[in-house]
């Protein structure tokens, strides 16, 4: 016979205002199996919890119903308290009489009646509860980091420095990401490469980091603690071990006019190339589409020049499997393009800015290369069309960002800061030049950030105009920029030599496809979703998968690095245990009844059900059956709903329990 205790919380006024808790306590006291029913001002407080513990012992309770807030808030609290008093924690149920009742109803009478019914349902459920044990699963204490930009580098180094192994996968031939191409960084104007390259070298030399560049994650199987990841290493046509990075090959390569990805198509590179001098690994890669050997079947000069015999024209893609326990996604961002052709039908280009057909309208990352000492102009500010030094430069904020008509409603957060930086860098190099900025708002929250923007305006003399630009045309080598200064209330046309667009930050290409492989959610713009915006900012809803950097949302370098360290910290918390403990509320298949139709296998969104065989002691096949992998099951119940033989059931939410709840109402 069950002995159930009911604990009703006032939640201060939150519940008590609209629910007569004392009346409710009295009404549910007589339900079958209930031996005590009390109300208390704050059940989650220490005295509230100890009241519950006392009653569990004194009344020899076999089940507990706490009627209070959402189980999302305090189920763990009350289960822990019950366990301390010696009751199996899975014999504790909650009735949500706050979010589902007192907060949404005004009539105290009716709200109280509803609260009683909610409690009655929970009592019916807990009567049928079974004691459950948490599931322990083994864990591979090795991490995968996807993306080798500054966030991925930071996460990988943090995890590796703690003694755990890291597999770092980068799509490009070198790690470094977007930051490696930046000139100087706000708000200190320290050289981006100078602060990043030591970290890149650390990654390349770290004994605990296995680095795969020019590689992509192709598939992910398994579950938290036990992922199996397949990585495709794209054919590099260079033997990484043999190559010394001496540079003979790329110096000799006759195919020299290939647009450099690293310089955002503003400079050239050879067919065999390292993207930039400080690349890690400092090993070249051959671009098949540019290499004369592959295009015309002749050449091979690089192979002849290579003293180490490292050029391998017969190199093939290689698929590698790695086992890891946790995954950090740090795939970063790309910039919105104003071109007519867009990646998604929701986005539209800027015909009014010429759809990118004017060579002297560049985006912010291109301008970084123009300013950068390692860039195509060697750090001299010269414009792409004719190499002239621009005497008048217009910077336009919010291109794509906050522009619903073009498909992006969000603020890209970093543009105000780097635009201010751009005007400074420009002025520092072109003393007689004039920088103009068209902006809507200046968003410079952050330590020393607003001071930095003010410096650009007050000391470096950038002309800031509040207003959007409506049109850019080209006349006689000048860009005619038609804008407005809404502060004086006048239209404003500026003849510029160069226009720099602060284009919106978008998730890097392929991020959503990767998210699908990882079962990680993403928003309408393709940014990966964190589990909770405040309390679980680097976790995702896929257990064991963490996010950091701009793949989760627009952010600057300091934030990306902080988030990367946070993600690494979360991984290490996971790795601090030998085993992982999971909630036992997962599906279970009654293997005796299972008709092996495997409808559940196909229906399961987590691939948590496998086809299994039941064999006798002699190894003879008795029958086939579906079987749940408790490490993967998320307890969604899809299999329960779909099973034609009613062989699937959900621990903690059995059909018996659910029917008991329904019956208690009717």
């Amino acid at each position, binding site marked *: 016979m069950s002995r159930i205790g009911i604990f009703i919380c006032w939640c201060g006024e939150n519940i008590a205002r609209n629910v007569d808790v004392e009346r409710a306590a009295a009404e549910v006291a007589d339900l079958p199996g209930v031996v005590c029913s009390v109300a208390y001002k704050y059940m989650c407080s220490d005295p509230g919890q100890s009241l519950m513990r006392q009653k569990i012992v004194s009344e020899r309770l076999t089940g507990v119903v706490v009627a209070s807030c959402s189980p999302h808030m305090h189920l763990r609290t009350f289960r822990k308290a019950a366990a301390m008093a010696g009751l199996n924690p899975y014999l504790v149920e909650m009735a949500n009489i706050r979010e589902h009742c007192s907060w949404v109803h005004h009539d105290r009478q009716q709200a109280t009646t509803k609260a009683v019914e909610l409690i009655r349902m929970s009592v019916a459920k807990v009567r049928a509860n079974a004691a459950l044990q948490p599931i322990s699963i083994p864990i591979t204490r090795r991490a995968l980091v996807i993306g080798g930009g500054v966030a991925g580098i930071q996460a990988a180094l943090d995890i590796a420095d703690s003694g755990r192994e890291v597999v770092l996968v980068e799509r490009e031939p070198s790690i470094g990401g977007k930051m490696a191409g930046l000139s100087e960084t706000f708000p200190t104007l320290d050289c981006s490469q100078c602060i990043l390259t030591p970290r890149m070298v650390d990654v390349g030399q770290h004994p605990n980091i296995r680095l795969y560049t020019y590689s992509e994650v192709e598939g992910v199987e398994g579950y938290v603690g036990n992922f199996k990841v397949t990585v495709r290493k794209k054919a590099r046509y260079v033997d990484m071990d043999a190559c010394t990075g001496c540079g003979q090959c790329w110096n000799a390569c006759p195919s020299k006019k290939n647009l450099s990805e690293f310089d955002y198509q503003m400079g050239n590179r050879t067919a065999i190339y390292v993207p930039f001098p400080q690349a890690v690994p400092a090993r070249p890669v051959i671009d098949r589409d540019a290499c004369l050997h592959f295009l015309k079947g002749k050449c091979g000069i690089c192979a002849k020049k290579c003293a180490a015999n490292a050029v391998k024209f017969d190199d093939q893609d290689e698929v590698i499997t790695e086992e890891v326990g946790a995954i950090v996604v740090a795939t970063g961002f790309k910039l919105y393009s104003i071109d*007519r052709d867009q990646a998604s039908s929701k986005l539209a280009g800027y015909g009014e800015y010429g*759809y990118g057909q004017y060579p002297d309208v560049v985006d912010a990352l291109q301008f970084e290369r123009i300013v950068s000492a390692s860039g195509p102009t060697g750090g001299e500010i010269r414009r792409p069309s004719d190499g002239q030094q621009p005497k008048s430069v217009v910077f336009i904020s919010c291109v794509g960002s906050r522009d619903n008509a073009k498909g992006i409603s969000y603020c890209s957060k970093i543009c105000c800061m780097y635009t201010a930086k751009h005007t400074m860098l420009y002025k520092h190099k072109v003393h007689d030049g004039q920088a103009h900025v068209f902006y809507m708002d200046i968003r410079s929250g952050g330590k020393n950030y607003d001071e930095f923007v003010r410096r650009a305006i007050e000391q470096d003399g950038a002309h800031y105009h509040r207003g959007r630009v409506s049109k850019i045309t080209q006349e006689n080598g000048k860009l005619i920029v038609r804008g407005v200064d809404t502060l004086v209330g006048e239209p404003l046309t500026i003849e510029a030599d160069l226009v720099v667009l602060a284009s919106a930050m978008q998730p890097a290409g392929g991020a959503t496809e990767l998210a699908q492989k990882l079962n990680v959610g993403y928003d309408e713009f393709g940014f990966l979703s964190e589990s909770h915006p405040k309390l679980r900012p680097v976790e995702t809803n896929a257990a064991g998968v963490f996010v950091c950097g701009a793949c989760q949302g627009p952010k600057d370098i300091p934030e990306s690095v902080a988030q990367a360290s946070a993600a690494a910290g979360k991984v290490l918390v996971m790795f601090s245990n030998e085993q992982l403990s999971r909630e036992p509320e997962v599906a279970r298949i009654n293997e005796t009844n299972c008709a092996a139709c495997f409808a559940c296998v196909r229906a399961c969104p987590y691939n948590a059900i496998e086809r299994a065989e039941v064999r006798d002691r002699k190894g003879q096949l008795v029958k086939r059956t579906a079987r749940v992998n408790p490490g993967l099951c998320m307890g969604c119940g899809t299999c329960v709903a779909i099973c034609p033989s009613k062989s699937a059931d959900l621990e903690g939410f059995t059909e018996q329990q659910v029917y008991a709840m329904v019956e208690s109402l009717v």
Partner: protein
Amino acid sequence: MDIGYYPGCALHGSSNDYGSSVRACLNALGARLCELDDWICCGATAAHSLNHMLALALPSRNLAIAERQGYEELLAPCPMCSMELLKARCALTASSDLREKVSEIVELEVQGKTRVLNLIQILQKIGLDAIKQRAVRTLKEFRPACYYGCLLTRPADTVQFDDCEQPSSMETILCALGAEPVQWNYKTECCGAGMTMADGPTTLELSHKILSNAVAHGANCMVVACPMCHVNLDMKQADIDREYDCRHDLAVYYLSDLVGLALGLDEKSLGIDRHFVVKR
């Protein structure tokens, strides 16, 4: 091919050269224009400036006539008319209440089903290949600045035609006939449109900018598909020259003029002899 035809007031008035041109050109291409019975004015800028409901009702009456006569498609060569017709069509299709109300006002049931096409769309419908097949001469001496003005492409959601910032449909047709359209920057800037009478200096100023930009980019003529653009750029060109002390000397053709010339039609039947600026 029989096409419902809404000429609008201008093509029956001082822009009858455009009317002749459209008819001659399309007839030569095998399209027969069937004018709507007793059509009324679309209301133009005056209606949408002074009376929102009137601006819906006047074009709706014409849509109702087109529906009654069973035209699925209606050619309105004047972009002001076609835009007003389309605006009404959008509003009617969006609201059954409005359909009811407007039907009552215009004393004829109107659904807003008729598709409204501009001159370029009709030519596209006939097809580049069909036009090229019938062409008897090349237009290679023409280096036109194709001028779309405001209402051919705007409001973009309503007219849903071409690219509202960088349109190219006229260029496509003219290139196919051998002309060499220039790239220039004022394709979609406004010429002042219906303000010719009400605010003369404004239209002179705007039109002067357009003509100047066309000349600066190497055009030897202009091509339009709008009677108001033609008035401001052609009829008013002498005034512009006087006001700004310059000499643009830029012939302004309707799109149907140049297509018609390629088809071998003579200037008179196309109404080109009725233009003000005559060159060549």
